[in-house]
């Protein structure tokens, strides 16, 4: 039991409503004004595998999942086996002995438990087996001191599209669970178990909770996305699903293409007409997109590619997390051209950077790769949407292109003062040019001439200098006194902040430098922090230390100490602490 936080988990068979139940509980927590962090695990099969959804909530920001549970809602016997290690003497387990044929004594639980006849209670009131989950939610709410009204409001919002009858039954089920737990506790069935419930907080107008992928999708829409073409691949698919489902409200066009190659080339085609476009995939699909990245590069076409990592090589472990594609995405595609590579650290940053990606792709007429991983993509975070009305200027469009004596418009004009040349789009008279995947001259016509080649390569490289000037302050929470400075990128931010907080509570000061800009690389910032740090540990989700490699390549500094994980699981603050204490 920790101060003003709780850590709740539901676990059971995939396909049996675990995900929805978790979401309901998470939203309920959030509507109490709590910060939440949700983490889910599921296997790469459709039903029958083991599925978990855990919610870490608190009145102060929470950054990551926690290992030790306050409350485990075990939807079958296997859930007890799988999560025994996560229980302490202060935990509580809810299970359903009648439905799941559980003899609880066999499990040697270290903690108290509540035998809740979820299925029976549900069926008694005419509800379905699956609705029994809400009995468990109601009980959880009572035990952690949550408001049944708020739980009911969430249940309403989630099930409204299935009709009032369904909503009512679910409400009844929740209430039954709530009351069962109250009675059991009152009857002393939980012994001395208790949870120090904390107060509801203010629930700000701007507050939302969403997953990294939802944040990316929404951020892209906020950034002016118009054409989204993609091909499903775990863990990126929910961006496609979200955008397809909201095509209308978002005012965009979504195309599920026949493969990743088609998706990226469609996005480039649309970009040529002047609309902001994007594709999304995971590492395997990204592999097939690599040639087209260079087409964006050589023809200076704006393009945003979202890539959400999972463990490889090849198919690897589809539903697990990893940070093993970093060096691949930084160098992917033949030859060289400037690119942005961003790796947001949480959903708030994912939203902001997705928005920014749309902007910067257009401004610098080229490629932005937005890198995520299963952990960020499918975990749910608290965020604030301060601004919901946006107005974008357009960058680099010549409103009155004029062709010269060649009959063509110098779309790729060489101008040493100005790396970025003005575009024209089809339909504009006088703007005719070729958008070429070959090396080309100022009009876009193919060339093999030495001088023109050099000029166009140099023109494209000149953009890099401007791109570097966009690099913002990287997330750095630390000071000169820190005993250790952790350097990480992307989603590793959360567990490190969680570790930082826990260590601080024990009087140990550590700093966290989390990089979200991987290309162009924030050389000076990173060098400075490293030089001023007493001890640096690079923490990343791969085996060979790709961030460490990149840091060495860019700064010339070799960093010897690192903590790496490559088993598909996310980092845990507890383990990071163990690592540095050993």
């Amino acid at each position, binding site marked *: 039991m920790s101060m003003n936080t709780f850590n709740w988990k539901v676990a059971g068979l995939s396909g049996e409503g675990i995900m929805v139940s978790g979401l309901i509980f998470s939203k309920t927590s959030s509507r109490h004004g709590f910060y939440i962090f949700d983490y889910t695990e599921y296997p790469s099969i459709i039903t029958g595998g083991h599925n978990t959804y855990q919610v870490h909530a608190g009145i102060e920001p929470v950054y990551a999942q926690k290992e030790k549970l306050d409350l485990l809602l075990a939807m079958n016997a296997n859930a007890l086996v799988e999560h025994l290690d996560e229980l302490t003497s202060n935990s509580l387990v809810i299970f359903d002995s009648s439905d799941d044929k559980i003899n609880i004594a066999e499990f040697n639980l270290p903690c108290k438990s509540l035998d809740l006849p979820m299925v029976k209670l549900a069926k008694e009131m005419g509800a379905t087996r699956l609705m029994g989950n809400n009995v468990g939610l109601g009980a959880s709410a009572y035990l952690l001191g949550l408001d049944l009204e708020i739980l009911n409001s969430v249940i309403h919002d989630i099930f409204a599209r299935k009709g009032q009858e369904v909503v009512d039954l679910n409400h009844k089920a929740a209430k039954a669970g709530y009351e069962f737990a109250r009675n059991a506790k009152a009857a002393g069935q939980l012994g001395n178990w208790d949870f120090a419930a904390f107060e509801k907080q203010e629930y700000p107008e701007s507050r939302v909770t969403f997953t990294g992928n939802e944040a990316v999708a929404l951020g892209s829409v906020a950034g002016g996305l118009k054409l989204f073409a993609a091909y499903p691949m775990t863990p990126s698919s929910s961006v496609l699903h979200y955008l397809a489902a909201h*095509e209308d409200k978002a005012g965009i066009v979504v195309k599920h293409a026949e493969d990743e190659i088609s998706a990226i080339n469609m996005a480039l085609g649309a970009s040529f007409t002047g609309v902001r476009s994007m594709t999304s995939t995971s590492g395997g699909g990204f592999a097939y997109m690599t040639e087209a990245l260079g087409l964006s590069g050589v023809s200076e076409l704006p393009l945003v590619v979202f890539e959400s990592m999972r463990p490889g090589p090849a198919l690897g472990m589809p539903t697990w997390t990893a940070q093993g594609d970093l060096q691949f995405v930084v160098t992917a595609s033949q030859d060289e051209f400037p690119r942005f590579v961003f790796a947001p650290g949480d959903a708030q940053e994912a939203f902001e950077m997705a928005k920014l990606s749309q902007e910067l792709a257009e401004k610098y007429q080229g490629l932005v790769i937005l890198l995520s991983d299963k952990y960020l993509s499918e975990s749910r975070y608290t965020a604030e949407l301060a601004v919901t009305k946006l107005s974008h*200027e357009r960058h680099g469009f010549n409103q009155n292109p004029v062709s010269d004596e060649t009959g063509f418009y110098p779309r790729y004009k060489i101008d040493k003062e100005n790396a970025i040349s003005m575009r024209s789009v089809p339909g504009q008279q006088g703007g005719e040019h070729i958008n070429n995947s070959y090396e080309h001259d100022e009009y876009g016509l193919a060339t093999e001439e030495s001088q023109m080649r050099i000029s166009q390569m140099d023109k494209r490289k000149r953009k890099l200098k401007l791109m570097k000037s966009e690099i913002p302050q990287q997330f750095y929470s630390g000071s000169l006194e820190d005993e250790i400075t952790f350097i990480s990128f992307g989603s590793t931010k959360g567990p490190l902040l969680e570790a930082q907080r826990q260590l601080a509570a024990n009087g140990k000061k550590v700093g966290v430098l989390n990089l979200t800009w991987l290309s162009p690389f924030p050389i000076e910032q990173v060098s400075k922090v490293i030089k001023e740090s007493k001890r640096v540990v690079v923490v990343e989700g791969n085996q060979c230390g790709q961030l460490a490699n990149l840091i060495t390549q860019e700064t010339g500094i070799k960093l010897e100490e690192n903590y790496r994980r490559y088993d598909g699981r996310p980092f845990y603050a507890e383990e990071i602490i163990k690592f540095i204490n050993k």
Partner: protein
Amino acid sequence: MSVKAKPAYPFKPTWCTGCGNFGIWGAIKMGIGALGVPKENVVMVYDVGCSGNMADFNDHYGFHALHGRALPVAAGIKLGNQDLKVLVIMGDGGCYGEGGTHFINLMRGNHDVTLLIHNNNRYSLTTGQMSPTTRKGTKTKSTPVGSIEEPFNPIAIAASNNAGFIAREFAADIPKLSARITEAMNYDGFAMIDILQPCPVYNPAMSYEWYRENVISLESEGHQSNSREAAWKQAMRADKLATGLFYKEDKPSYHAQVKNLQQSSLTKQPISDIDISSLAVEFK
């Protein structure tokens, strides 16, 4: 004479003497001309190949795509701006080989683009290897003892795969080809013309004379272009290569079925006034 000449724009064709691309090129220019559409509203998407080298010989907006990928680019252009006429130039290698899955899948969507396949039965730009339409037993650089595959039949495939406008023409019959191109570009949907293109360098056996002897016009056969079955039978016949309009059917094109494109093209939809508040609701 001792100074390097500046090239004239657009560049002059670099095709070999006798190349079938010359005829197709002429027909394209005539065919587009007959549309009566302003030059800037016609976008040409070129695949890589001898055929695609045409990118530098025309004066329209052009997109020289990656090998095999011209179709998705074209579909993307049309989704971005449906007010444009989109003409796609591909070789048989790019269209039926490297890009085969785009061909069979985008066709089914009825994207409103016109696809010309310069079918010379070879990968010519890469110096003459076997292509999907190379006849079985043909010796090429990559099949020096004769190819083993039986050839791909694009017309029969299109007839079996929901294409709404299916034609084949001969590169050297410029009047007929150019009229067909105009007709295809006026068609609202996916229109393909497989063009029999002599490549005297890498496919000398299928010369102009050979084609003249082996081609028969559908018109002369009284073919009715409203029957998929008749189209398929003509496509499958072994004795002759039929040319003309195999099949035509009116049905809504892809963009016409997308709700957000009913009022205007994406290019006309501003991004100066985005409101995500209604989207944010579900995240509360």
